[in-house]
């Protein structure tokens, strides 16, 4: 466990690409800044002029009723959806369109609302896939079993074991992920994102479908990761209790509009939120 702590503590400055890590280290630029993001699907305006930022080391919740546009926002940041207008800035770098295939290199990792694991792979292979972005050895080196490829794999395996031990899933690494209970799969999904040692982690409903105990465990993990690595976290979550307890700041979306933004205390008092969101939740 102690090695885990050391590695995770050193994680903040190792997002793969040197350029970005320098920018992140030398300025106090926000981990993420959105400016005027608009997105529509045909007639549906999923996001309207959303501006939003996440400070390094911050747990930033996004709440709102179903269909509010939370997942769409994360998809825009991931480069899976292309915003009609607005910019995304990550560690000081501005993008009109996020390149999804370079996301990991930029130091951003995410989980998916509906599990997006690879069912045909073991838990360990799923997690190791989170390191594919920085892999150097090519196919030939791997097939021939050259020492560079072998030591790279061994290093990856070690990192996978560390993160798995940290999340308490070390015992299931060799199991096919599709045979694992849902709650464990959620942890594997988190491990696959964390193993890349991102600067920004986006969690789309990481506790949906979990039991009360599993939720508490997941919340503890999220907090522990932040405390140890100082990464910034975007947390989409419906459980208000968890959100209030975990987050530093909360943004509230409703019908694609950001209707409130502030600390948990401010959000709890906001009449707009009580009317639109808490009302909708009750309905």
């Amino acid at each position: 466990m102690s090695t885990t702590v050391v590695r995770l503590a050193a994680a903040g400055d190792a997002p793969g690409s040197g350029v970005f890590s320098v920018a992140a280290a030398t300025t106090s630029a926000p981990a993420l800044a959105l400016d005027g993001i608009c997105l529509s699907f045909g007639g549906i305006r999923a996001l309207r002029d959303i501006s939003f930022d996440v400070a390094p080391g911050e747990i930033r919740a996004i709440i709102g009723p179903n269909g509010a546009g939370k997942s769409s926002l994360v998809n825009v940041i991931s480069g899976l959806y292309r915003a009609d207008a607005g910019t995304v800035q990550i560690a000081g770098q501005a993008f009109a369109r996020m390149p999804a295939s370079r996301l990991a290199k930029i130091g951003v990792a995410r989980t998916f609302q509906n599990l997006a694991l690879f069912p045909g792979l073991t838990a360990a292979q799923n997690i190791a896939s989170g390191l594919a972005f920085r892999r150097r050895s090519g196919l030939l080196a791997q097939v021939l079993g050259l020492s560079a490829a072998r030591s790279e794999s061994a290093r990856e395996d070690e990192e996978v074991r560390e993160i798995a031990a940290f999340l308490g899933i070390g015992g299931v690494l060799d199991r096919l992920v599709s045979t694992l209970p849902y709650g464990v799969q959620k942890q594997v999904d988190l491990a696959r994102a964390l193993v890349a040692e991102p600067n920004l982690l986006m969690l789309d409903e990481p506790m949906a479908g979990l039991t009360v105990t599993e939720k508490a465990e997941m919340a503890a993990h999220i907090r522990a990761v932040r405390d140890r690595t100082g990464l910034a976290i975007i947390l989409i979550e419906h459980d208000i209790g968890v959100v209030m307890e975990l987050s530093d700041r909360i943004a509230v979306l409703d019908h694609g509009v950001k209707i409130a933004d502030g600390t948990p205390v401010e959000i709890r008092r906001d009449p707009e939120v009580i009317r639109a969101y808490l009302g909708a939740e009750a309905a």
Partner: protein
Amino acid sequence: MSLSADVPVAPPRVNLRALGLLALLAVAVLVVPVIASPYVIEAILLPFLALSLAGLGLNLLTGYGGQVSLGSAAFMAVGAFAAYNFQLRLGVSLPLAIVLAAATAAAIGVVFGLPSLRLRGFYLAVSTLAAQFFVQWALTKFSWFSNDSASGVVAAPRLTVASLDLDAPQGRYLFALTLVVGITFLVHRIVGSRAGVNLIAVRDDETAAKVIGVPVLRTKLVAFAISSAIIGVAGVIWAYAYLRTVEPAGFNLDRSFQVLFIIIIGGLATIRGAFLGAALIVVFPLLLARTSSFAFEGLVDAGVLKLVERVVLGLVIILFLIAEPNGLSAILGRATARLRAVLRRG
């Protein structure tokens, strides 16, 4: 004696499996050439080896990579004709011709794999038909490929490697076996490597793979390249060792479907599946012919038999899709597990 506690004991299961494979290989190399009649080699073993290899190549792309292809026969044709022309026109040795043929098939495979960057599933399958029809058309249309032979059919060159004459049935069998065993080992290495893991990741969830940084485009194109190269070598075996002629006719859509059926019946995303499926596809028609000639004593003519063969094969495929989507490989897996349990108890 005190040392023995420190020696790590390898799990016996792995040893059993490796031993079994080794025994199989020993039989295939040492025993089969001695006892198998020329008929068994030419009618069963050679097509079995060629189709197993084609199935193996397709399984890499379709079973492991999730990219459905109906162009297998086209890549077999490319391999066969490329090897023939490299030997004819550059006078290269057979081994070099095979390497160049594999490279040619890989290059053409990448070209026809480009649509996979945009298309999936059914649409991709249809687009690979383009490879099937284009290659067959080109080989028939331009007689240059067949060295301007009037019939479009050319005799394959004699099978010689260095000063070794492999033209007899035994020699052709060993030639095919060597290629198949070598490439199978290579595929085994590939699917066990990180690149093989990437391939499965792309198959299982392309979006997630892309977002976490798996090189999706490269993975797909490399899969097309390697798969086509392997299928190309299968084409060389088919033409050089089995048919002993190089001709476009046999590399038609039927053949492509046959290779696809082989991996569906045998088991997608398994190595042994290609061999099990090919064995069934090769042996089944022969068994059917034997049975019918035994039961009806020649009352059933060849045309009807061919038809029966197709219908029954179609039913078998449907049966597998419904009852055992994981194919013969899964059935074999259960059988060996049961056997192992019995042995352990006994």
